[in-house]
């Protein structure tokens, strides 16, 4: 069991895009050679902002709900496991269902693989591999009390997708006034966004003098 007070915190604002997490994930003993997480540039042309993507371990996991073979199990301590080899039929329903883009179908073994928060490590008192190596603190693992004391952001576990609210075990660090992360699709549609650009780099051309 993972200690009940140990939680996973994600803060992309700290991420430097180094991919240490991605590479270290592939070093975990249970799936050595295959990384179960990934890291993406939000929009490299605009910014160096990167986002590490680990499984959010939803309270009511869409991946497991969509699985026709009942191959995705959730442990009593809230970890949504990778697919069971004996059950997974490689249909990729879970890949399509996940709102965070986490599960990956691995053709080589005809099976879905995804992050299980390093259950072999976390259930024995260690931190997940990706968190342990992360040099920026974008990935953190510990108690809520510790993180709230150390950081200026607050952890959020509610994600709004249209009419649906997804609650997760993994916490996203957000500005103090935030209560949920609202992913308005309009922000992702070219020309439709009214949102202000907040990154410094968005203003770089204007900052540069003659």
């Amino acid at each position, binding site marked *: 069991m993972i200690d009940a007070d140990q939680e996973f915190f994600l803060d992309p604002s700290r991420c430097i895009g180094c991919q*240490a997490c991605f590479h270290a994930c592939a070093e975990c003993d249970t799936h050595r050679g295959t990384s179960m997480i990934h890291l993406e540039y939000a929009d490299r042309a605009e*910014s160096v902002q990167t986002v590490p993507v680990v499984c959010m371990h939803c309270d009511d996991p869409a991946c497991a709900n969509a699985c026709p073979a009942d191959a995705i199990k959730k442990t009593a301590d809230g970890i949504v496991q990778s697919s069971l080899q004996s059950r997974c039929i490689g249909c990729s329903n879970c890949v399509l269902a996940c709102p965070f883009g986490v599960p990956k179908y691995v053709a080589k073994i005809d099976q879905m693989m995804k992050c299980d928060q390093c259950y072999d490590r976390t259930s024995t008192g260690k*931190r997940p591999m990706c968190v342990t190596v992360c040099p*920026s603190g974008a990935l953190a693992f510990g108690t809520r009390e510790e993180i709230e004391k150390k950081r200026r952001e607050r952890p959020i576990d509610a994600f709004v997708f249209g009419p649906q609210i997804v609650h997760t075990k993994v916490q996203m660090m957000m500005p103090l006034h935030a209560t949920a992360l609202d992913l308005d699709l309009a922000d992702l549609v070219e020309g439709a966004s009214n949102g202000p650009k907040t990154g410094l780099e968005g203003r770089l051309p204007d900052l540069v*003098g003659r």
Partner: protein
Amino acid sequence: MYGPHLNETPAGGWSTAGEADKLVKTHCCFCGVQCGIQLKVKDNQVVGFEPWEEFPVNRGMLCPKGVKRYLQGGHPDRLLTPLIRTESGFRPESWEKSIDLVAERIRRIQEKYGRDSFAVISGASLTNEKAYLMGKFARVALKTKNIDYNGRLCMVAAGAASRKAFGVDRAANPWSDLPLAKCIIIAGSNIGECFPILTDYIWRARDNGAKIIVIDPRATPIGRTADLLLPVKPGRDSALMNGILHVCIEKGWIDRDFIMKSTNGYDAVRATVANYTPARTAEITGVPAALIERAAEYWGTAATAMLVHARGIEHHTKGVENCLTCINLCLATGKIGKPGSGYAMITGQGNGQGGREHGQRCNQLPSGRDIENPEHRRLVAERWGVPESELPGAGLASTEMMEAIHKGEIKGLLSICINPVVSLPDAAYTRAALEKLEFFGVIDFFMSETARHADVVLPGSLQEEDEGTITTAEGRVVLTKQAVTPPGEAREDWRIICDLARKFAPWDKFPYQCPEDIFRELRTVSRGGPIDYYGITYDRIEKEHGVFWPCPEVTHPGTPRLYEGGTFHHPDGKARFHAVEYRPPAEDVDAEYPVILTSGRVVSQYLSGTQTRRIGPLVQQYPEPLVEMHPKMAASVGVRTGEQVTVTSRRGSVTLACQVVKTIRPDTIFIPYHWAGEKSANRLTIRALDPISKIPEFKVCAVRVEKASGGPRP
């Protein structure tokens, strides 16, 4: 047949997981942070790693280079026997005959052209023991004055500035001071990619309320969320720092008591920076005046503040001057020698700090002693048991050696731990020089692009195949352990050097049985010197997770923070200001070459790439150099992301894919330099040196950018 080939899987395959014979607590071989790491060893092969969470600097954190470094174990390109160049390529040879051949060729060249006609060129990824040994080998065995190292390409400008200002060359504060600072200026350091672990220290400072100011022509990962990004035009750093100090003085944000009690030379600096008004500074640097004023306010009004810098301000023909203007700001505001207040150059190479301390530099004897200082010469000669008159004087810097080869002054060369074909500016000039040599010997573990020019290649050791101390960028002396023995007939570097040395010098001058023997001698020689290691032992290092020099006695705790109480290392105990007038780079843009080229690193590669270009997952992360350019420039060139552009300077040209990003100044392009041959950024860079430190101007030269003809290349 020598690669670079990509190693994708651990020695013995992925199934070696979990069954390691042992875990060895040691350090990463890449960069001056020297993160602690545990290497997994099975059947005398490094097959993986486990984080080492007890080591206090990185507490288990690693960057991708650290995570994947173990893939050098069992690498197919590993050199396993000595090799001799023949008409039809390299052939294997025995150690005995190879060492004899190298010794015979050295002797022949020295007899024919004089002792100094044979040069030794070494590197700052070597341990302290090897750095010490290389200096002694050159001066006592070969008796040549020409020994220098690749630190000339690294932080030597910062070292020279610190010696001038403080009287000693070391980061003034430990990293643990960073989170205590209320303002941090990061000048020319892409911390997120070059020293990823330090990001955590910067973010912790920010958590504690610090203002972070980043000075960089690019919005790097650390710049992205800084409070202030000053997008300086490459080559204008000294003007910018003068401008910030100007505002601090105008507003009275200076520490008069500290200036009076602990420094010399302030008045000249005040008079000089008086001319660097925000408006004029903005005109020179391309940074808006309002941002310069705000930076000064953040720094000047902060209770504590630290300034850190790296190659971005050091790789210039005024590298020393750039660093001195940073030091002037720290001194004038009294931000030095206190918890959370101070100054650090972030040394780049694995042993960039120790590599410049122990006598492998052309102008330096061990422990930072000066080769031209009669007292220092007498003392070292006495401890080495050689007549002072036989110690050579100052030799040529490594960056000057290629010119000396072209001129015929240097006829033979032995190199270790350096790949100048990739790392020196103006690569064509370097290649031509190596082909002119009458003899070229190389010690390396892979066939680097430089080793291909050698007459003899001796297979040395990877970091994990040898033991020895490293001094990290914060001045902490740590111990790297031998996890495995060298494969095949490869040998530990120190054994190779000792074998060669004994062909020229009596056995008792090189009597070492192990690296610790060398360290014991190094400690003794350093005793009472500017860089005192006497109190540091292997035992203490292991027990204390490293010891900071100076450490004059075994009972001394070591010195993490320098200059406490405003006491500096010059004879009068005071720090020295240096007035610096801005001067332009060696090659400015003009109508023919209208674009500024700056070069640097990416997170997945290390230096000339001899190691990291052979590690599959790191190569996949960033396979080839890209030309970063702003959309405005891309529009004028007529290219989009992914299209090929040809970049041409007065030295040569390269054709590479471009990456169009808003994260760079519109007047500047960036190319990372880790690659060889046709993809080498150093085909373009200029062979112009800082007059004091001899560091090349990698960070600014003039180029022209055109859409490549002939469509996309494979």
